[in-house]
């Protein structure tokens, strides 16, 4: 990163966006405005300063986890540019998604991005098929990133099709009706948030104290329909003194999107 004149404060630094050209017909959430807003949030000089102060070099290596990796573009960006974004490369990352297809795609997105930036990349461990962080040992996540299914919808899709169905396989180049149905279902899981678009996010917030380490911080995307002021009131009212700051906000078509950091 070199520039002759300093950008105005609040301008995200520019780091290359990971390639997702290997994603062709797989039913995963494609990199979208909300994904890019997350990349911009982490590229803000103020956020780089926040994280490198919270996890200074020479302290135990942070564990970064993304819930709902989809295409993997956010995890790949954070893993590939860890040295620049977090001030250290000794970071380990994991990706969690309910979709096996998303997990296989994400592994490729991350591996490709990291191999292109060996001078700044973190160490990616694994993608795991998991509902939220239920697979993780309690209180071990230092940096948690979540772009949830945030769209308010009359129906909230159940996970039972994935939980109780056959072992998931990679869905790609669908030909059978069964595969088409699975595609529709997987895509509905990527955006449908049920009541106020908050049903999945609420489940995470309920267990946040069991997920984050003492120094842990959650980066959460909300849309206006989630009623952010109500979320702030709820989070800051939870036990053990949580703070919730808005990092960045942007209008994207009809949506007003914002990224928040939640920490103690």
């Amino acid at each position, binding site marked *: 990163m070199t520039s002759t004149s300093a950008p105005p404060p609040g301008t995200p630094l520019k780091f290359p966006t990971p390639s997702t050209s290997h994603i062709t017909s797989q039913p995963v959430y494609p990199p979208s405005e909300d994904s890019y807003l997350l990349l911009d949030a982490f590229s803000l000089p103020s956020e780089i300063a926040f994280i490198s102060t919270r996890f200074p070099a020479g302290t135990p290596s942070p564990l970064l986890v993304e819930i709902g990796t989809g295409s993997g573009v956010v995890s790949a960006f954070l893993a590939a540019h860890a040295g620049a974004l977090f001030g250290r490369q000794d970071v380990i990352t*994991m990706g969690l998604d309910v979709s096996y297809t998303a997990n296989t795609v994400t592994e490729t997105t991350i591996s490709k991005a990291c191999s292109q930036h060996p001078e700044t990349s973190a160490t990616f461990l694994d993608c*795991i098929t998991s509902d939220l962080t239920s697979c*993780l*040992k309690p209180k071990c996540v230092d940096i948690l990133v979540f772009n949830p299914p945030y769209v308010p919808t009359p129906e909230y899709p159940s996970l039972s099709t994935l939980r109780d169905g056959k072992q998931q396989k990679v869905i790609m180049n669908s030909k059978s009706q069964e595969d088409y149905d699975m595609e529709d279902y997987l895509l509905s899981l990527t955006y449908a948030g049920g009541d106020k678009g908050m049903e999945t996010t609420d489940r995470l917030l309920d267990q946040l104290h069991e997920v984050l380490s003492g120094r842990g911080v959650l980066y959460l995307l909300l849309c206006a329909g989630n009623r952010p002021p109500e979320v702030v009131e709820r989070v800051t009212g939870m036990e053990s003194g949580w703070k919730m700051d808005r990092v960045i906000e942007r209008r994207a078509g009809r949506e007003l999107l914002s990224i928040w950091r939640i920490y103690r």
Partner: protein
Amino acid sequence: MKLLTANFLSCAVKACKSSPLSFPLHFREAELASKSVPYNPLLLSNLLPRLDWQALVTSSKELGFTLPDAKPELPLRSTTTTTTTANDDGDMNMDGGIGGGVSDEEEKTLRMLHKVLMETEVVEGKMVCGSCGFEYGIHQTVGNFLLPSHLV
């Protein structure tokens, strides 16, 4: 799934989370592969303090590796040298060791940890909870921790 990852996983069943038997999960019928990963001695040194060493010894033993009984003592580090070198395996690495000097003994330990924790990959297999007995499948390196509805 890398061997190291097992140090961060526990049974997804809620009632098991508080049971010491739910961690580490036990590898069964594991098919292993060795996957080349860039050697990062800084990461290994700074990871050690947060690892559950006894769990790591258990997981390693299940996959056929023997780690020392006691956690190696390595200082926390904050810098690496940035020379690009090829190591003995011929891999190109961004390492060349850690700034501030590492003894031969430490270097040996770091290389061993790298091999076991970072480069040992479970391609197919299972992880079993010592508390409830639930088996989590690993397929094409991806672990499946989605529980059936009746266990949620």
